[in-house]
């Protein structure tokens, strides 16, 4: 087994950076690998999304293998929308066999939101049940049905997501605790724009001691254009861009400059928060801005394992 750099860095309390690299809408890996290789050295691990927003793309599994072959540490994403418990368990075993050990388990956006709205969704189990199942496979060596695993328990680092900006707000902390109880070890949050709400969420995390049980990476999303801003504000499920931030960006003379400034402001405030283990950068269609953000926020060069 290769060492899990991402996990090691979190354990040694470094401020960790993960970045999302969306796989292509096609089978050609060249652009995807180019995009990812530009980010080499600027993030510690790379999320490969699983048909995000229910739009068909190259699979997270294939994307993760491509990254790994090119020396980048992948975080495989697995959603409950397209696979039942049989397929999910089988993929967890397969991932571990291929040394893909970081897995982010999510429920997934509903299929009617994507580009094949007539598809039948699966939703056999939900994200918390999947996290619990992954832990059971690893720690107890038992399949969901209680049968014993025969040859090799999967060695995986279990991740989940959390959206502090989804309603009802008061329940989000309890749901995070449920995820921790189920077996989550690291959490990547929804993109933070409402820093006040996020700060009060983190206060509750500390109060409940969840920061001691989970490595929490705060979501960061630099917005590339006014068009993207509108899309994120009005059409992407789960994203909350407060009016104040919207106006700040929308009325800026130099949109890109203002967006970078805003992102760096947010990163700085997040870095200071107690209980935060790092940031997860999702730069939709703007991945090439990531090196600049990492440098300007004082996170470059990336740490190594002691």
């Amino acid at each position: 087994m290769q060492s899990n750099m991402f996990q090691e860095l979190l354990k040694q309390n470094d401020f960790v950076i993960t970045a999302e690299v969306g796989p292509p809408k096609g089978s050609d890996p060249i652009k995807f690998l180019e995009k990812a290789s530009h980010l080499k050295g600027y993030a510690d691990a790379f999320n490969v999304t699983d048909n995000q927003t229910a739009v068909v793309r190259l699979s997270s599994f294939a994307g993760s293998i491509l990254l790994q072959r090119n020396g980048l540490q992948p975080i495989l994403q697995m959603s409950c929308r397209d696979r039942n418990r049989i397929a999910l368990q089988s993929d967890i075993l397969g991932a571990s066999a291929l040394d893909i050990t970081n897995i982010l388990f999510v429920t997934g956006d509903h299929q009617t939101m994507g580009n094949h709205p007539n598809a039948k969704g699966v939703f056999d189990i939900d994200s918390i049940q999947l996290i619990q199942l992954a832990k059971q496979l690893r720690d107890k060596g038992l399949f969901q049905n209680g049968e014993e695993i025969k040859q090799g328990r999967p060695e995986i680092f279990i991740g989940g997501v959390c959206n502090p900006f989804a309603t009802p707000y008061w329940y989000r902390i309890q749901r995070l605790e449920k995820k921790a109880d189920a077996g989550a070890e690291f959490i990547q949050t929804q993109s933070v724009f409402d820093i006040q709400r996020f700060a009060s969420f983190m206060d509750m995390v500390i109060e409940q001691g969840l920061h001691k049980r989970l490595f929490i990476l705060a979501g960061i999303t630099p917005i590339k254009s006014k068009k993207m801003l509108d899309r994120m504000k009005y059409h992407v499920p789960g994203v909350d861009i407060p009016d104040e931030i919207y106006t700040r960006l929308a009325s800026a003379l130099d949109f890109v400059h203002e967006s970078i400034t805003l992102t760096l402001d947010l990163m700085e405030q997040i870095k200071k928060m107690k209980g935060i283990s790092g940031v997860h950068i999702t730069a939709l269609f703007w991945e090439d801005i990531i090196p600049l953000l990492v440098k300007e926020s004082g996170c470059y060069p990336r740490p190594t394992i002691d």
Partner: protein
Amino acid sequence: MIVTRKKSFEDIINALGAGSVYILGCSQCATLCRTGGEKEVLEMKDLLEQQKISVTGFFILDPACHKKNSKHLLRNELQNIEQSDHLLVLACGDGLQVVSSLFPKKHAISGTDTLFLGAEEKRGVFTKRCHLCGTCIAEEFNGLCPIGQCPKHMLNGPCGGSMNGYCEVSTDYPCIWEFILESMANRGQQKNLKQFIKPHNWKESFVCSLEE
């Protein structure tokens, strides 16, 4: 009830093609949904006749899904049914199939789309309640069912897509978890809020016949 929606008249005409029609309605759910009661059956008859399609007769079954009773009720209509080329059924998919099994030689056409098992909230507003999942666990949620009412069947709390109390799937569809959590909180069920609900047993939803 089984909630149905009328198919467009154009779709019905296309499905009919040529030939004469016998129309069947249903006194129960389809009447409540105003898709296959007496009024709708008579309206359909008029519309078809305006299109010069011959209607050999009509009948409102009580209800269509009661096979033995349907057979009995139709005993005096056999000749009219025999004269028709198509049976147009204004009932749910179940009623349709009871009719087609009674008249295997006839071409049965559905005049409705069957949507879900739900309730009429207020006049003309129907909402899905139950997914017919086979093993009822609604008591875990104070009788508010996330299998029936959440498009992702989330059993351990709301997904990250709920915004201002509404579901990510549609901004005019409330997230059922708002109500479940509110009910748990109001009843002081702190333990239930954190309780892990295990993967559901869907097996019983594949049971296709039942004998008492």
